[in-house]
């Protein structure tokens, strides 16, 4: 890969957060209906890379994410993190850990904790910090992410865009190797979304992590990603892997650039094809 593929910040730091998805198969209910969700899927994600996973709804992207996070089992194949096996046929379910934190589609901030307590939660749980230390770091990180002023509010009291940002900061507090984002901006309106994209990139440039980002918005994928993996409809495997050669740091002017348009054209058809297949399959099932 060319040098532009790596974020500037990753240079000179130890390599951490490389994910290798190696020939992974996931079959739900193997003794009964045997629904194949993931079909011999292989994908390499470099440390510190933003990898966007694009595919139609219900194609099995989230199954892959859950396997990495350690929420669900895989049937065969293996997933490695920095060369260490997370899960394989012998050990089908990875142990959930603070090196891989998920930001959920509809958010999973604890509604009964204030934003600050949510953000400070991880390090306290892991015994890495005292409550005082964790609060101090949380306040600093929140201020850095433009969240000053909402620390003592409950998540239910702030806007959904704010909530999503709090959740990303909560994830980063754990100093993870990998951030797993499952369509985090799906429920947001397009204006808030564009603000969130730039905010995510800004947070990303400050914190070196690998990002595994699920979406079905191609524009979002090309704007944010170093790499865009377009998945087939169920069963899920990469149909086309696109290296986005627009250099980081990026801002919203990228959207109107010539290269961006070209990349959109190059991939649009592949995405649309899978969407049609998914739609037809859905019709049949319905």
């Amino acid at each position, binding site marked *: 890969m060319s040098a532009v593929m790596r974020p500037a910040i990753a240079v000179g730091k130890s390599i951490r957060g490389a994910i290798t998805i190696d020939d992974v198969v996931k079959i739900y209910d193997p003794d009964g209906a045997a629904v194949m969700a993931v079909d011999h899927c292989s994908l390499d994600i470099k440390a510190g890379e933003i990898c966007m996973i694009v595919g139609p709804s219900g194609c099995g992207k989230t199954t892959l994410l859950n396997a990495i996070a350690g929420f669900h089992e895989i049937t065969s194949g293996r997933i490695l993190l920095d060369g260490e096996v997370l899960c394989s046929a012998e050990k089908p379910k990875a142990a959930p850990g603070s090196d891989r934190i998920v930001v959920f589609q509809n958010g*999973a901030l604890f509604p009964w904790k204030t934003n600050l307590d949510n953000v400070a939660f991880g390090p306290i749980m892991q015994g890495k910090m005292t409550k005082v230390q964790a609060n101090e770091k949380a306040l600093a990180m929140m201020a850095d992410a433009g969240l000053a002023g909402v620390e003592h509010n409950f998540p239910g009291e702030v806007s959904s865009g704010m909530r999503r940002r709090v959740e990303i900061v909560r994830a980063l507090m754990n100093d993870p190797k990998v951030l797993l984002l499952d369509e985090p901006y799906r429920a947001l309106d397009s204006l808030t979304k564009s603000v969130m994209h730039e905010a995510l990139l800004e947070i990303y440039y400050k914190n070196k992590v690998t990002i595994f980002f699920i979406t079905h918005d191609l524009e979002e994928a090309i704007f944010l990603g170093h790499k865009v993996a377009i998945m087939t409809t169920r069963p899920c495997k990469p149909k086309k892997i696109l290296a986005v050669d627009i250099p980081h740091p990026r801002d919203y002017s990228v959207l109107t650039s010539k290269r961006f348009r070209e990349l959109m054209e190059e991939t649009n058809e592949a995405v649309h094809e899978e969407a049609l297949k998914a739609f037809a399959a859905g019709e049949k099932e319905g």
Partner: protein
Amino acid sequence: MTRGGKLLLSSTLWRGIVSVAVFLTLWEIGSLSKIWIKWDAFEWLRTALNAVGFKPIYLPWVGAVPAPSEVLNAWLIVLQDPSYWQSWYMSFFRVMSGFIAAMIIGIPFGLLLAVSRTAFGVNFPVFEVLRPIPPLAWVPASIIFWPTQELSIAFVTFLGAFYTVVINVIGGARSIDVRYFQAARSMGSSQWDIFWRIILPGTLPSIMIGSAVGMGITWNVVVAAEMISGGGSQAGGTSGGGLGFFIWNSYVGGSYEQVVVGMISIGIAGYVSSELLRALGTYMTPWLRLR
């Protein structure tokens, strides 16, 4: 508070006052109508109906109920009677002891059933068989079982709240979003942390709903239990009988005004306990305040 808030408060307040006033007025008119209409003047109607085989021995009429003015008079007299206050105290004491026991036993029991499949499998069938038995059906067994009448009433009261609390705790704990557990586990929470920091606060709103419903049932049950068991006090009489016994005793003694005084007293007592519980609930679940 904003100006709009104050306005709302005052108009709500006024509506409440008007509603109570209209209710009392209609009741007063209804009760006094027995004097105005002279029910006896309709004796010919009763004779006529009897002649055709229809025997209205007595036609119900709101006039049979004491008027609010009479009730108020009776109340003013009763207010100076220490045994009336003793009844309040007795009923409140029984409700609270039964209710608190139901919370202390019901919440951990419900949580245990929610988190452990084994505990659920072992306990739930028995629980479900016992649950439909009305607390009042327990009164005779309770009197036989418990050494004192006081304990047997408290036990029946306890049953009134217990089942509701347990069912709500189980339902509440089970409906906690799985993502909270996943997130907590990813961030390194132990089972113990998950119990204290996720399951308990996540179930709290349901605990509050369960206890509000349970509190209502508790008042229903205590009054009936007091009537059936003769007030539970060896002393007898109005002293030490509780509000249920106060009503029953007034009825037996023919003081219908006092019956109504007792009924309204229970209404007020139930309202006060619900308000206290609501205040506690709001204090315990601050994150739900702004929804």
